[in-house]
């Protein structure tokens, strides 16, 4: 059977199993195709299915839609702010130009490939939503395997955030919490399967080796290691659309200066593209630290206290390592195992909370992890594959 993947590198273990069962794999991004092929998982890029005539048809459609945008851009936003109105009046065709052409061409390629099932890591970004929409329009299943545990962080009622839009037909969710989150947003309960989180399978199998991790990172074994997991600004929701990421990082850098001897690792998001900025800020404040977007498993094994800016998947990943204490700037309000530092705390208060946390015993995070991640037995990818086989049968 023919399976199309959205561009998400963590699909690799699932792809490997699906290939072993005889399926044909195509990726919507050539980078992922290369990843697959490098690991002896034969696959083709979706671009192989673009035919010259189809490309012209797609560009014709795109041009026609762009031509209508000025005329259709006035309705429905009369009460919007000045810059929004100006953008929709003057800039929307330019904004849509490359996006619309790319997506239209992708639609022709998907149509030509005609997959039996589509696997996506989200169904809201333009390319993944397009893939899910094609499946929906062609009576094919689209399985959404969420790349993150979406959480209620007080950013509006269900249906008011762009992540609440559901286009995929089926969901391989982590556990009960995520199932309820999606059911509240209208996902058909019978189309949801609780599988755990495939991306955590490797953590379930990791045997912590703190001394080795400390040595690999050239840290000192007798001094505490604090890892700060920073983030990046997301404008998809107004209530998250502010400078919190930058300001809180500044507080962490100031707080660490109240703690002589503390060793700081700044773990930036692998796709945040802001490691350089974090390095510059640390240098400006005279803080010696490691800034890295990679080596997550090693960093977590070396860590005594993990702090994340807001709720993050890294907190779940950190929960696999018994000696790590978990803290957040904000979020997880109902979860008493997680230390809350406070988003509005002053640097000195942040430093005090860090000192207290380092002086306390690490918590048992098994219940916390189960709540959000479901079963973490290292076999989630296998359960996803079983679900795919069911949908294909």
């Amino acid at each position, binding site marked *: 059977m023919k399976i199309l993947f959205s561009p998400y590198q963590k699909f690799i273990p699932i792809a490997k199993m699906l290939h072993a069962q005889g399926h044909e794999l195509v990726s919507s991004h050539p980078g992922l195709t290369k990843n697959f092929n490098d690991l002896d998982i034969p696959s083709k890029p979706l671009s192989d299915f673009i035919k010259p005539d189809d490309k012209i048809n797609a560009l014709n*459609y795109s041009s*026609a*839609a762009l031509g*209508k945008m000025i005329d*259709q*851009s006035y*309705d*429905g*936003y009369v*009460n*919007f*702010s*000045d*810059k*929004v109105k100006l*953008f929709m009046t003057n800039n929307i065709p330019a*904004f*849509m130009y490359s*996006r*619309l052409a790319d*997506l*239209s061409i992708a*639609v022709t390629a998907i*149509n030509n490939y005609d997959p039996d099932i589509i696997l996506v890591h*989200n169904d*809201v*970004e*333009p390319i993944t*939503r*397009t893939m899910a*929409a*094609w499946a929906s*329009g*062609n009576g094919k299943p689209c399985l959404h395997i969420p*790349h993150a545990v979406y959480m209620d962080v007080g*950013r*509006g*009622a269900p*249906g*008011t955030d*762009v992540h609440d*839009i559901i286009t995929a037909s089926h969901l391989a969710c982590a556990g009960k919490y995520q199932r309820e989150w999606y059911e509240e947003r209208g996902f058909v309960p019978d189309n949801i399967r609780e599988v755990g989180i495939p991306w955590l399978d490797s953590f379930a199998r990791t045997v912590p080796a703190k001394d080795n991790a400390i040595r690999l990172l050239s840290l000192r074994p007798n001094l505490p290691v604090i890892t700060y997991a920073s983030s*990046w*600004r*997301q*404008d*998809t*929701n*107004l*209530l998250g*659309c*502010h*400078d*919190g*990421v*930058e*300001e809180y990082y500044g507080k962490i850098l100031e707080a660490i200066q109240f703690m002589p001897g503390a060793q700081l690792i700044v773990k930036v998001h692998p796709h945040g*593209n*802001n490691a350089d900025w974090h390095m510059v800020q640390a240098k400006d404040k005279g803080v010696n630290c490691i800034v890295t977007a990679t080596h997550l498993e090693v960093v977590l094994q070396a860590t005594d206290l993990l702090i994340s800016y807001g709720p993050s998947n890294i907190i779940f990943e950190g929960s696999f390592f018994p000696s790590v204490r978990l803290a957040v700037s904000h979020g997880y309000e109902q979860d008493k195992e997680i230390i809350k530092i406070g988003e*509005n705390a002053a640097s000195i208060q942040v430093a005090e909370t860090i000192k207290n946390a380092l002086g306390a015993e690490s918590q048992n995070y098994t219940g916390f992890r189960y709540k959000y991640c479901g079963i973490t037995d290292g076999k989630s990818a296998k359960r996803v594959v079983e679900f795919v086989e069911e949908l294909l049968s």
Partner: protein
Amino acid sequence: MSRQKVSKRRPKKEIMKMDINEPALNKSMQNRQFEHLLFAEKWGASFSPFLGVPVVQCITYDLVQVLNDLYLQDMVKS
């Protein structure tokens, strides 16, 4: 999921955030983001689909980010 760079011009948190837990502001921001989302969805759906796929509507995710950001810039300006 978004890939914003930190060098991007952005509103001051002191103005924009204003403690989003404050109920009136929180509600106002929720309503505004919802209006942007509804608009983007409805506007996108008003275009003809391509091979059955509502392509313009599929760009809602990118569009609402811009609308939210522009709205906040207007708030800062005022």
